[in-house]
């Protein structure tokens, strides 16, 4: 999801009297709250003037370096406000001579190629932008929380830096959970000689692969009993859950099975990570009138 950038802060340090670098129109970047699907991206345009002096009409070329929190290999990250866990981001600097995926200069020593200077904001060469992107996969893998970071960009005129501090790229990731891959369970035709047992494999997405709990009920209310109906006749059943391919644990209506590990990939990347089992006891079916018994099983995945 594309998020508009807003409010990019700027600090300007003029260190050399004979050089002039000025950046205007920067706003803070707030990537907002992740909805749970897609990536987050925003960009902000600003004006970068680079010339010999404040009154000069001679543009001066410059290159750019970036600094900020990184993953140790120079790739930029935002940091969780609680535990400093990392959320990778891509910082792209869009100059007048190309776009460049920036990395931490302190680690990679990466500099953009020389860019053309501009003497005022009316010149096309002055139009610069920054794009910040958090990828969907990284957002899903990150634990819930608010991530932020302060980044610095240096514009260097002939190796004379002019430093601009861009503050507060941030994104909030809420506690997200989703149950999917839900399919009907057809227990078939009672053979008369054994329980009727059916299963359905599920996917539970949980951002950051955090824990979740499962519960079930036979109706919209958490404590609605597990009952199948055929006209005026009813037939009880049992419900069990398991994580992966472990042992099934039977639950009563509304009773939580806790401590399950979610998938950090929505729809589990096409797979599953949990399973529900429904069992109708032979004795109960033997004592029931013939007919087709149906019911709705509600399964709730709760973030923990």
């Amino acid at each position: 999801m594309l998020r508009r950038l807003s409010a990019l802060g700027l600090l300007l340090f003029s260190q050399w009297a004979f050089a002039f670098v000025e950046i205007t129109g920067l706003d803070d970047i707030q990537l907002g709250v992740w909805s749970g699907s897609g990536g987050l991206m925003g960009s902000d345009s600003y004006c970068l003037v680079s010339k010999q002096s404040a009154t000069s009409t001679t543009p001066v070329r410059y290159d750019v370096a970036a600094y900020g929190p990184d993953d140790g290999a120079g790739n930029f990250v935002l940091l969780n406000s609680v535990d400093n866990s990392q959320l990778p981001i891509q910082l792209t600097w869009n100059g007048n001579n190309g776009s460049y995926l920036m990395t931490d200069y302190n680690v990679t020593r990466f500099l953009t190629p020389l860019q053309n200077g501009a003497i005022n904001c009316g010149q096309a060469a002055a139009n610069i932008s920054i794009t910040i992107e958090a990828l969907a996969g990284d957002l899903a893998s990150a634990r819930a929380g608010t991530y932020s970071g302060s980044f610095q960009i240096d514009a260097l005129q002939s190796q004379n830096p002019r430093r601009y501090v861009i503050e507060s790229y941030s994104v909030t990731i809420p506690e997200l959970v989703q149950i999917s891959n839900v399919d009907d369970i057809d227990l078939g035709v009672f053979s008369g000689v054994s329980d009727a047992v059916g299963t359905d494999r599920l996917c539970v997405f949980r951002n950051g692969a955090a824990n979740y709990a499962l519960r079930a009920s036979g109706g919209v209310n958490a404590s609605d009993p597990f009952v199948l109906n055929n006209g005026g006749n009813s037939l009880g059943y049992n419900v069990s859950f398991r994580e992966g391919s472990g042992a099934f644990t039977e639950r009563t209506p509304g009773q939580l099975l806790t401590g399950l590990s979610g998938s950090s990939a929505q729809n589990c990347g096409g797979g599953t990570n949990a399973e529900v089992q429904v069992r109708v006891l032979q004795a109960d079916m033997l004592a029931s009138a013939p007919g087709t018994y149906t019911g709705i099983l509600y399964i709730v995945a709760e973030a923990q």
Partner: protein
Amino acid sequence: MKKIALAIGTTFALFSLSSLATNDGSLATGSSTGDLDITVEIPDLVQISGLNNIDLGTFSGSDLSGEDQVCVYRNGSGDYEITFTAGSNNGAADAASGVTGYELESSAGDTIAYTVDFEDSLAGAYADTDVGINSALAGQNGDDADATCGSGSNAKVRVNVAASEMESSPAGDYVGTLYMTVSPE
């Protein structure tokens, strides 16, 4: 000595199933709810169990009768019907049920006719006597809760051999097989 063995039969009726819908949960904060439909089909079921051989003993000049108490399960409130067929095989158990008549047979090939009575309760008198072979007795009541009648019985069958049949037959052991087939109505 004349023996009669009993056999069982079951019948099922099947129905087609329909496909229902499911709903994945939505991506949400806190919790996500999905729902699925569960379907199970219970067909018309019937079972006869608890059968034992009937040993009529040794002919001593009087009619002989022997009884076996059985369990007939029938799910729901429906009735069942029961049909009797028979077989004999030169004094041995017969795996083939026939409809020509109730007969016991000796190893020499001599035969003795017998009759069959049936009652769908234990306490009552036999409501159906001299039941015709391969002729269904309808309107019988079974146990609708326990396929084995709680390890008990709820019906009885009786076989009878008239003294006149045995008086005119050569000495020997006579054996036959009585088949009882129950079906849901």
